[in-house]
């Protein structure tokens, strides 16, 4: 009996040792960002990341924070990854200054760092990260506004409501700035009476819906609503409740989550930008792995300014539910 126990113990220890050795042989990549597990967006990024990790044989970890947009906790996780000596770090950088020092420290330690999803607004000039993989926020906002403008009524004044989902944060401000940039150009080019207003639209479907519906009740001349995230889906439900017909107020936003696609199918949302979160996680790992293997330099990838229209919904819906688009 004693012999059996000893044999078993040795066997288990050998297996654990072999497993640890195998894990040590595999490159380790860590993804840090300031969102919690309730954020739908990062679930898709994680899926892309994990698929890529399987392909390159890496051991990967995506670290969520407990409270949404907790940059301090993200930075702590970033530092833990450096201390762990991982082979590469992907980081979402939602502030222009907060990530500068820690990124430089990682680069100095020989750990490649790529910005994924959101970058320093000054790009490579503002942070030592090797590249950015994600949506160029301003460009995406500009492209969305340009497309929605084709749906504006041919005559009369245009009044646009801009929902800054998280005032002061790069991702929301960057997208809305792009939209404002195009509206300024549109106004100058057409000479039409174009006005717009920004509200704090919030990060919750019900909250955003209530705020947008209230605004439209007070300002029935509103032509369109742009949301910095996917919460225009909440606005769609609230406006339908108010008895507005589909298209009476044009609705547009970012990210092809199922709830937004459903409202697009119902006719209430006209345009959505697909920033392809799956691709961000997927390409991030492949780029890190190529840098590690062959010493290649990083290269920027703009994953998303593709405009999704109602006719595209059926094709995208299934992939969206799988977390790929």
């Amino acid at each position: 009996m004693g012999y059996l126990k000893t044999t078993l113990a040795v066997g288990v220890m050998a297996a654990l040792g072999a497993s640890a050795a195998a894990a040590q042989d595999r490159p380790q990549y860590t993804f840090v960002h300031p969102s919690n597990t309730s954020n739908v967006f990062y679930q898709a990024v994680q899926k892309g990341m994990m698929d890529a990790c399987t392909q390159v044989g890496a051991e990967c970890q995506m670290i969520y924070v407990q409270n949404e947009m907790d940059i301090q906790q993200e930075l702590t996780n970033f530092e833990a990854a450096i201390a762990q000596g991982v082979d590469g770090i992907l980081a979402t950088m939602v502030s222009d200054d907060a990530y500068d020092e820690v990124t430089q420290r990682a680069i100095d330690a020989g750990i490649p760092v790529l910005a994924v999803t959101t970058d320093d607004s000054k790009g490579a000039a503002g942070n030592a990260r090797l590249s950015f993989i994600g949506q160029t926020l301003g460009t995406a906002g500009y492209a969305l506004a340009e497309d929605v403008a084709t749906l504006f009524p041919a005559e009369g004044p245009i009044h646009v409501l801009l929902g800054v989902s998280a005032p002061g944060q790069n991702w929301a401000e960057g997208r809305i700035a792009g939209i404002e940039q195009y509206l300024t150009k549109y106004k100058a080019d057409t000479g039409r009476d174009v006005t717009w207003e920004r509200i704090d639209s919030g990060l919750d479907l019900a909250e955003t819906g209530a705020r947008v519906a209230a605004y439209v009740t007070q300002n029935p001349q509103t032509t369109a609503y742009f949301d910095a995230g996917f919460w225009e889906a909440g606005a769609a439900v609230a406006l339908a409740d108010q008895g507005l017909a589909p298209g009476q107020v044009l609705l547009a936003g970012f990210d092809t989550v199922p709830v937004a696609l459903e409202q697009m199918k119902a006719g209430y949302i006209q345009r959505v930008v697909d920033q392809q979160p799956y691709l961000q996680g997927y390409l991030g790992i492949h780029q890190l792995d190529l840098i590690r293997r062959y010493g290649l330099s990083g290269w920027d990838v703009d994953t998303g300014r593709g405009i999704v229209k109602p006719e595209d919904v059926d094709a995208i819906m299934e992939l969206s539910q799988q977390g790929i688009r």
Partner: protein
Amino acid sequence: MRSTIKAVLSRPEISVLLITLIAVASFAVIAPAFLSPGNIRVVLGIAPEVGIVAIGVAVLMIAGEFDISVGASFALAPMMGVVLTQLGLDPYLAFGLGLLACVAVGLANAGLTIAFDIPSFIATLGTMFIVRSIVVLLAGGMPPPLPDELPQEWLISFVGPFRASLFWYLAIIVLVSLLLARTNLGNWIYATGGDNQAAKNLGIDVRLVKTICFVLCAFLAGFAGIIQSFRVHAALTSLGTGLELQTIAAAVIGGTALRGGVGTVVGAVLGALLIRIIDNGLVLSRIDSNWFQMAVGALTVGAVIVNETLRRRARAIRA
């Protein structure tokens, strides 16, 4: 006359009623559309979802405890209902099990708080993270679409200009008010929150009373979550995020004492309504996005200060 004024102003819900009326009058002047039928429908569309949770939170606070996990329970019931329906279960059974899961959360909260004698604030903070994680696991990462076959009419269909959820809300207000005001359990809840040891000495089973309050709180949160997920046509893992603080604020604004033993359902309902009115009124007032949260915060604190001042003045009036 003085004694009547004192009696009226001393009631926890009267001062919040006065503040709500002042807020309504002010916003009506600033924003002409504030009292339009359309805008009233906007406010009353979301009010039941927050208000139902606030009722449960207020009852638990009266009993002397907190529940920080209500936002997570709010997401748990609809997520479980949707996932189980997708697995082929009858929708009523699936959502019933979702509510049963919330009851289990309430029991767990009570068990942790009572059996281990740890502050409910900490115990429910822990369950908040655990339950939120369960919601994410249930969703499998991505939020599942709401099945078409869900029987939603009984909760969210329009009855005249208002949604059915408003009538469920009114029914819950009446039932829980009666429970607090007209039953032995109601008296025990006030006694337990007012002085736990004295209540024990009187022979009240304070453990049972608190357990019932924890369960009621989690159940109502789950029920409200189902209403919201049906209304917005989505069961997101982020549903109810931040709701715990909003509903505790509603209860406090409505006159519920943080130390327990004092409060009413109507007060919590008015507190929740005031928060919605402030939010709505500020949008209509076209507050710049960068100033919005500051304005909400300042008005909320202002409402509590006015509330406390009115009650202090009332207590100072000689009968």
